[in-house]
């Protein structure tokens, strides 16, 4: 059993009051308590940005890597020890800007890892520049005349790139985010969870009020297994038209389940001592 108080470190959170990261952190700790994620079974990774600070406040062994690179690090951890639950916390700039290449390729590989995008549509830590998910015409320090670029759609990109679990959460709904985090980890294969995260300091458009007013949960007869419908759904965005929940989920063999070397034991449990290589040398005679 993981207890909530065991999940905190000596560092207290230093996010701005009201920041969506605080809610994401709460949802993650709730999920960990519910599911027993702890230092015996779980590894965390983060990129660089306000989102990455989550590692300092969460007492589960982690690696805080480079800007844009948490996904390959998470992949390496999973391949080395596929017994671990692996979570990568990343930002919209981190994951879709600096790390875009890794994101696309991770989606098509189906490693059994979880990628949580703290999507605040802004560069928080570097004090408010436009990010890959900032809207067209958005004014920021780096786009004072309005953003001439159009935003990337992480849900659509993930589905198109072959991810087998694609969902969106709104950080302000801690309970809903908790449920989606748990579902993501239960899915065998790559899970992409795009978490709408208000940045109260720099992004005055995508605020808590904005999301509360405009998001709705997918449900009813929505079929998560229909890829075309999911793709169509992913394009929906507007007033009262921001879907939350699982867009797409299918069962495909995870990467790790296809690798004979890690079927029985994780790599880290195999002895690296190889004394007798006579057979191998013989091939070159």
């Amino acid at each position: 059993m993981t207890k909530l108080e065991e999940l905190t470190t000596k560092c207290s959170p230093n996010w701005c009051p009201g920041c969506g990261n605080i809610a994401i952190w709460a949802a993650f700790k709730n999920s960990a308590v519910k599911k027993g994620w702890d230092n015996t079974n779980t590894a965390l990774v983060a990129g660089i940005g306000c989102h990455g600070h989550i590692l300092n406040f969460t007492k589960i062994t982690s690696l805080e890597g480079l800007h844009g690179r948490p996904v390959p690090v998470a992949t390496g951890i999973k391949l080395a020890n596929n017994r671990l639950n692996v979570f990568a916390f990343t930002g919209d700039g981190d994951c879709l800007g600096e790390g875009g290449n890794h994101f696309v390729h991770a989606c098509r590989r189906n490693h059994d890892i979880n990628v949580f995008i703290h999507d605040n549509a802004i560069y928080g830590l570097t004090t408010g520049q436009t990010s890959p998910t900032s809207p067209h015409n958005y004014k920021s320090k780096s786009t004072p005349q309005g953003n001439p670029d159009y935003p990337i759609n992480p849900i659509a990109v993930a589905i198109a790139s072959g991810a087998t679990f694609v969902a969106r959460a709104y950080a302000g709904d801690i309970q809903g985010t908790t449920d989606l985090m748990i579902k993501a980890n239960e899915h065998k294969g790559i899970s992409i969870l795009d978490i709408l995260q208000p940045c109260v300091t720099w992004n005055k458009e995508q605020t808590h009020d904005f999301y509360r007013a405009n998001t709705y949960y997918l449900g009813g007869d929505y079929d998560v297994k229909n890829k075309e419908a999911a793709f169509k759904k992913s394009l929906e965005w507007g007033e009262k038209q921001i879907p939350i929940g699982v867009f797409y989920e299918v069962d495909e063999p995870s990467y790790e389940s296809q690798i004979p070397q890690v079927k029985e034991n994780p790599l880290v449990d195999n002895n690296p001592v190889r004394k007798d290589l006579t057979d191998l040398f013989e091939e070159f005679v």
Partner: protein
Amino acid sequence: MSGPKTISIKVGGQAGQGIKAAGQLLAKTATRSGYNIFTYTEFPSIIRGGHNVTQVMISRDEVTAATRMCDVLIALDQDTIDKHKDEIKNDGIVIYEGEKKIDTSDLKKSVKLCPIPLSKFAQEAGSNELLKNTAAIGAVMALLNGDLKILFNLLKDEFGSKGEEIVKANQKAAELGYDHAKKEYAKYIERLLEKKDNIEKKMVLSGNTAAGLGAIAGGVQFSAIYPMSPISGVLHTLAKYQEKYGYVYKQPEDEISAINMSIGAAHAGARALTSTSGGGFALMAEGYGLAGITETPVVIIEGMRPGPGTGLPTWSGQGDLQFILHAPQGDFPRIVLAAGDIKETFYLTMKALNLAEKYQTTVVVIIDKNLCDGDQSYPVFDISDFEVDRGKLTREKVEGIKRYQLSDDGISPRTTPGTGNFFIANSDEHDEEGLSSEESDNANAQQAKRMQKLITCANEDMEEPTLYGPEEADVTIVSWGSNKGSILATLKDFLNVNFLHITWMNPFPTERVKSVLSKAKYVIDMEANLTGQLANLIAEKTGIIIADRFLKVDGRPYYPEEIKDKLESVLNR
């Protein structure tokens, strides 16, 4: 074969004509006949068309370099004759396609011409273009008085997996070439490749294969490598044997991913290794530093080619040394080793995996294209002395463990996720548990702790450079990497020249280098880059400035002939 004569055979043709494979067949046949071999291949960065040449050096003694001149030229096209006509010895043999119009009028009159109907033999044996090569090799076997049975057995071993028919066709082609040469050119036959008695079993290994085998022998558990010349052979080797030896090779989307995946795997407790060339290493640079600050053991095999940019993709160079010693921002204990031959590549790769885990840092093993794609014959390697050393790694739960605890030797306890222990492997400066900290005292202490590991390594593991030749000499050559073989081959003719071969670049054996060079009468620095990067390192470490820098940037190896000229010009001054 009488005396220590070394035979040099060049096989030339178009890319796609199986030139390299033909060289391999010759090399292995010679090895199985009891000789030593060394190969060198030149090829352009295209798959079909363009000129390829592979050179096989065969000798009773160890052979460590390719010469510019050859005894036998096998020309599969006109281009080969035109390009190599000045590299044939006066009494050399030229074997070429007798069916096509090949113009040999430019060749020296003393050269022995051996046209052979290779296309006809290939048709007869099985109508596959590549059989021409096998027929030509059959002819070489006849002219050198080699044992056709050895070639037959080799063809069976090499092509067996492709089916009996392919084996038979190759054997037939070899036999046709052999018989024809034996009959038509009996007067040229020399007893150079006669099967020896008591043959010692020898492997024919390239540097890329040696690095892959060294990784396997060294206990690699995870490897992610993005393809790039000249190191793609490392990944081909590792990919091939992964299931048998229970490690994972993963092809990543780029080199940034390669190093970050390796860091993830090592953080989780797997022995991890990646490989790249200069361009890919540039992409890895930030990750190189991440491994440094998080104290994550990662081995990087860096196979050099001339840069900057794409440079000369399929040629050799030594211009990455200073980059590897200084990339990226900031200071951390970079262990940097450089192999001088294929055997050193094997043993240094094995050792690197231990050093990385013992010192919880990066270890780069530098090689170059000459080593990557060249072959040399060696008796089967002995690995019985090697012990896997995982340093201060524990996978047990240890109450109160501090992953970045300050310590005298700079090395802290290491643990992994999933053990019950807690730490953050943190790219930000961090305290002993790994939590981010910007405190002044902590930053000073952690930086010093990390760098202390290099001092410990210098005391406990660093090896002295080797001085070949006499202790006292008129000229001392200082060099590194694949130049070693060419220099050693040349040294045989100079009793008054010695050679300091450096393999440890960081930590650096300052005292020994200083003592050798300060005693030397005249020093020549030899390296394949524009500025003398090793000489600059020596100046930085020892204060000794080497004025005579015999440098090379055209991607070609140093030929013993040109080293000889250089030495003579210095000695006769």
